[in-house]
């Protein structure tokens, strides 16, 4: 918790323009006003906390539900659905004509396109999944829908201009900045709903550690719990993708890092821990991506993998065995 606060302050403190730490405090507590902090740094830091914790938590939900250490928040086709929505808007805008396209590609239209895309793909996955009994089959169905949407995106890119492609690729890098306070409040509202649903699933998640047959014998309504867990993941991962783009790696890695550090599978410990570590890692990654005092900003997606992947490898090698 203290580490999280420090990272939060450091993240606000560091950036292209150096701002003294005293002014950071002053601005946060309302004694002085700093335009950069109020309109750029603070929203960005809050976004980082929401994205990191949300992706970590939804990754944990999917890994427990699917009993698979390779599962992440996007196994249900959420990110591929969002990509498809955004690709249709950006790459398909040629169809609507030049003048219209510039209006279409505003921040909100991309958010709406991403949400709609992920919602529709998720709906398709859920409809097909409701016909299968086996939870593992849902995993495969999610992957299949992912490759269908990826194929559609490839076809679209083939017919697009270089400019449109670049714009699409930039979205794919992910971005924590550029969120206004009004966007952030919508983001936070949906995020909170996802977290509340997750909290109600803690008992079910622990029961699922025994496997589905045992869980059923303990009086757990498998279908209902599965649905709540999937909805919570969709809300979290869906809004994050809509507002910040497809942030890779965090959702897969944070639960593993947390399990290695805390050495437990009990979700009562794991869930708050994943929440904190997710937020901390995201803040650190974002601070690095800002390249403090320089004018450049690196794509956040590259940083999460560059920093995160070696950490996971190092933890696994150090412990010599995987904890799951």
């Amino acid at each position, binding site marked *: 918790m203290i580490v999280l606060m420090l990272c939060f302050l450091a993240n606000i403190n560091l950036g292209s323009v150096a701002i003294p730490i005293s002014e950071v405090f002053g601005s946060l507590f309302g004694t002085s006003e700093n335009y950069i902090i109020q309109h750029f740094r603070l929203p960005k830091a809050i976004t980082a906390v929401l994205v990191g914790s949300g992706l970590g938590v939804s990754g944990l939900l999917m890994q427990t539900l699917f*009993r698979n250490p390779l599962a992440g928040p996007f196994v249900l086709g959420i990110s591929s659905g969002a990509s498809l929505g955004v690709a249709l808007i950006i790459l398909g805008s040629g169809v609507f004509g030049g003048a219209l396209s510039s209006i279409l590609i505003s921040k909100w239209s991309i958010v709406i396109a991403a949400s709609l895309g992920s919602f529709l793909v998720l709906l398709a996955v859920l409809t097909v999944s409701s016909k299968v009994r086996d939870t593992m089959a849902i995993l495969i169905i999610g992957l299949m829908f992912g490759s269908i949407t990826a194929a559609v995106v490839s076809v679209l890119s083939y017919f697009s201009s270089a400019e449109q492609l670049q714009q699409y690729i930039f979205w794919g890098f992910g971005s924590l900045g550029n969120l206004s306070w009004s966007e952030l409040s919508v983001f936070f509202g949906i995020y909170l709903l996802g977290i509340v649903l997750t*909290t*109600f699933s*803690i*008992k079910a998640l*622990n*029961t*699922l*550690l*025994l*496997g589905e*047959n*045992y869980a*059923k*014998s*303990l*009086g*757990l*309504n498998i279908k209902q719990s599965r649905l709540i867990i999937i909805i919570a993941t969709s809300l979290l991962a869906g809004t994050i993708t809509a507002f910040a783009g497809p942030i890779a790696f965090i959702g897969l890695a944070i639960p593993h890092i947390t*399990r290695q550090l805390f*050495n*437990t*599978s*009990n979700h*009562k410990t794991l869930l708050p821990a994943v929440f904190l570590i997710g937020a901390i890692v995201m803040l650190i990654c974002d601070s690095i991506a800002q390249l403090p005092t320089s004018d450049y900003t690196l794509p956040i997606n590259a940083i999460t993998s560059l920093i995160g992947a070696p950490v996971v490898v190092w933890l696994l090698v150090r412990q010599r065995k995987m*904890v*799951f």
Partner: protein
Amino acid sequence: MKDKNSHIILRTNQLSIGYQTKKTTSTIASNISVQLQKGELIGLVGANGIGKSTLLRTLTSIQQPLSGTIEINDKVLTDYTIQDLAKTMSIVLTEQLMSKNLTVFELIALGRQPYTNWVGNLTPDDIHVIEKAIEQTHLSDIKLRKCHELSDGQLQKVMIARALAQDTDIIILDEPTTHLDMYHKAYILKLLQRLTRNTQKTILFSSHEIDLAIQLCDSIIVMLNDHVVYDTPCKLIENGVFNNLFPKDLIDFDTTTGRFKVN
């Protein structure tokens, strides 16, 4: 007669088990009528593929019977909600645990799930029941160890303790002695027998350890090719039921010693 009936905890009536698809029905065993008494240890024996697991899956409501009824405490199984059933019957399965990164205590504590609140917090009463289950299965020394550090025999004891913590009238175990050496096979079954004596629970287990089952069980359900017999071990031997358990080309049942012999 009324008095005798009240001790019957699980009763099946003309039960028929098997698998049903849209087009075909494959019956695995039919005409199963058994009455399991309170506080008894009951074995379920039969050759591979005869339908022991199917019977246990049907009794535990994992799959539906083709026909006939199952009554637990004079109430039809289908009338139980899964929450109520969780307080009446607990199970120990052969399947591997998904996560062994829980401590023995945490895993046994999961047996209290039907009783705990929405977030799964343990009350002092819950902890008391868990500690008692740990004591009854002699796990006090290893209760803080992680499950992946345990041997197969220890893990089986932990799973039995978890079922005990669930505090149910009936415990059903599917082949609790597989993967165990001769000593631990006897140990686990002896433990089950002791539990029925001390706790008045009814314990039903399937096993291939017919010798041990004959020595320890109060009654045995024998699944044969064409019918199912349910009686005390002595009566079953007298009536020559075990002689027909397996094809006679390799092993024979010796009625005087109560053991199988290779020809």
